[in-house]
């Protein structure tokens, strides 16, 4: 099993997700002889995990139980250790679709950051594609490389520790798509264009601030990119609940004929929602 291929049974060396209930979960590495502490007790990997089916309920030493889930990039995104601010699945979904990624796609990405988007890209382009990801921070580049190896996807990704604005992606004329999530994306547009195949390709730049977007769009236009389009996508989550409302007394009703409350199934909105993550700018490299 791995992040790019489903497996039925938990095996040694797997990254698995321990699900405790209602949005509470964490990743573990499954190893013979290892133990994992949870608030419901201890999970012994050798007896409780290895050989069990993914999705199984595992009883912990104190009697409570958890579910063991197969890892996916989406579960990884909400559980990974943050080294930087990350992209969440809502933006990631948009990026994957608007860049037209699919098995076999060659993608260039910078910066790698905490690897949230990287894992999703790798999953989508497997088994025949490749991700070239550039990170200018040495420790982050090393950590990302380690993680890709541990997650058994290293054959699908190349990590480069350099500055994309100065040195580009390390490859030229191969990419179907380029993704930029850096402070000054307009400085990397020239390199992005060079990285994309001659036959054309897609580009995406993610920026939190509108000033960055303006400079980037200008650079894209000057570089001959077409179909330049900026948008934002926000997630609205509903909480499904049964709500009961008291029935008002308007007088003159025969006693006992009225109910005291009436119930509805409602999709309740939360008090707050994510109002902004960043602007997504997409463009197409035209033929030249």
């Amino acid at each position, binding site marked *: 099993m791995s992040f790019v291929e489903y497996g039925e049974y938990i095996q040694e060396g797997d990254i698995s997700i321990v699900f405790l209930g209602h949005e509470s979960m964490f990743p573990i590495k499954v190893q013979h002889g290892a133990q994992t502490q949870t608030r419901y007790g201890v999970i012994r990997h050798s007896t409780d995990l290895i050989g069990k089916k993914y999705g*199984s309920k595992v009883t912990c030493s104190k009697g409570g139980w958890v*579910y063991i889930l197969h890892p996916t990039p989406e579960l990884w995104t909400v559980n990974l250790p943050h080294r930087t601010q990350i992209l969440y*699945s809502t933006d990631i979904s948009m990026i994957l*679709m608007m860049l037209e990624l699919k*098995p076999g796609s060659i993608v260039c990405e910078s910066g790698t950051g905490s690897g949230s988007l990287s894992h999703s890209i790798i999953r989508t382009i497997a088994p025949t594609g490749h991700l070239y990801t550039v990170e200018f921070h040495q420790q982050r580049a090393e950590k990302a490389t380690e993680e890709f190896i541990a997650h058994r996807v290293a054959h699908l990704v190349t990590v480069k520790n350099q500055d994309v604005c100065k040195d580009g992606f390390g490859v030229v004329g191969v990419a179907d798509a380029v993704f930029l999530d850096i402070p000054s994306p307009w400085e990397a547009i020239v390199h992005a264009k060079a990285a994309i195949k*001659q036959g*054309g390709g897609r580009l995406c730049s993610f920026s939190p601030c509108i000033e960055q977007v303006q400079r980037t769009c200008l650079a894209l236009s000057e570089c001959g990119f077409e179909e330049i389009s900026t*948008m934002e996508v926000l997630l609205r989550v509903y909480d*499904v609940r049964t709500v009961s409302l008291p029935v008002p007394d308007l007088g003159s009703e025969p006693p006992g004929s009225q109910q005291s409350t009436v119930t509805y199934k409602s999709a309740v909105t939360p008090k707050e929602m994510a109002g902004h993550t960043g602007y997504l700018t997409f463009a197409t490299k035209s033929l030249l």
Partner: protein
Amino acid sequence: MEQNEVLNNSQPVIKELDYVVLKREDIYKAVQIQPKRKIIFEKQWLFLDNAVGQPYGTTFDVIAGGVLQAQKPRPAGSVQESKEAGVDNRNIVDDGRSQKLTRDDIETLKEQGLKGQEIVQQLIDNSTTFRDKTEFAQEKYIKKKKKKYENIVTIVKPSARVLAQMYHGREPGKICHLRYDTLGQMLTLGNIHAGNKVIVFETCAGLVLGAVMERLGGYGSVIQMCPGGGPVRAATDSFGFPEDFYEMLHEFPLSKVNGLLDGSLVYSVEEKSEAEQTNTLDDCMQTKEEIPDQCDLVNERNDQDEELMETSSREEQGKQDKGSSNTQDSKVQDKRVKQEEKQRKEKIAAALLREKNADGLVIASRFQPSPVVLSLLKFVAPSRPFVIYSQHKEPLIECYTKLRERGGVISLRLIETWLRQYQVLPNRTHPKLLMSGGGGYILSGITVEMDVEKPSETEKSGEPACKRLKIQHAQD
């Protein structure tokens, strides 16, 4: 993969019989390149013959007779020279008389064969107020006239993005008003990737199916559940998938799901009775009966919406290729061969379903989703995602409730996405004036091991028993 490697990539070129998408600004149309075939696009007739041999992404001028002429590639960043312009519009009066060219004049120019750009220049030269407009207003004016008079069309490769945008813009009713970003969410929430075995139930003209197939890239398998009549795959054809992609695509009638689950479904080799023959058809084009409330499916195919797309579907081509059988006997024989083939394929699909180890379930239809998801989840392995789309919230609330009662699912989430486009221009950056009002809703979740005993009070919330006891203690 070495550094600075430049792959010898031959640019993909347009070939005859390719499925392509015509594009002008934000308007798309999916067509198949067929020799000497007249296509209508944006109120114009054109022939795509000259597109063959050109690389994808080429922009063409449409010249007299509907013939395409490839444009020479423009140098990057050709900026318009700034001539004189005004400061504001306080003195500009809109009396409708500032343009000196009449409708007839413009028609004459068109007949003379002037290209769009030249007509726009003529309009500028003959406008009394143009030089008084601000720079911004001038740019806006030019953009508007270009849109009206420039006769260009770009030919692009089809993709889920392009086709989803096309359908959402032009024919949202055919895809249950699924907005393209919502489709994107579904593909990711469903972890659709190469090697998966995915069950799909959709009534979105085959768009969702095509998007799933695109993400599978030919690896793995898809079982499409069909609600009466044959599967509608108009949009799927538009993707232009290679033949071998279709080898991993199976279909299975929804009406036989219960039979499959309770074991009453049996396949026999003998010929089916006349009555059954008319019911189980590859192409619903021929049927006239069928359950009335499902003849939308038949009509969708029959419609061949001229505005949206003109594709000769693979089914039709297959029929044409086979040629016309001469005698009545050979017609009956052909039909029998078809029936047997269909039954053989159905058995394969049934076998795949019986394994009950699907890696995902995607539902996007106009049917009530609860019964569908409750049945089809039985074919899905534990620890796998499922995604249900609906144009309306309420059916998904019902699903949520029923799934909570059923148990064996976690991380149930009812969501929608909010999408906003921006105009980004120097000193003129703002969200666009018109915005999508909604793109549908998604209920997603992950399967887990079903509890063997009856779902008790503690199972309902999907939370471990220990935790609930603690909460109860806290509340006491």
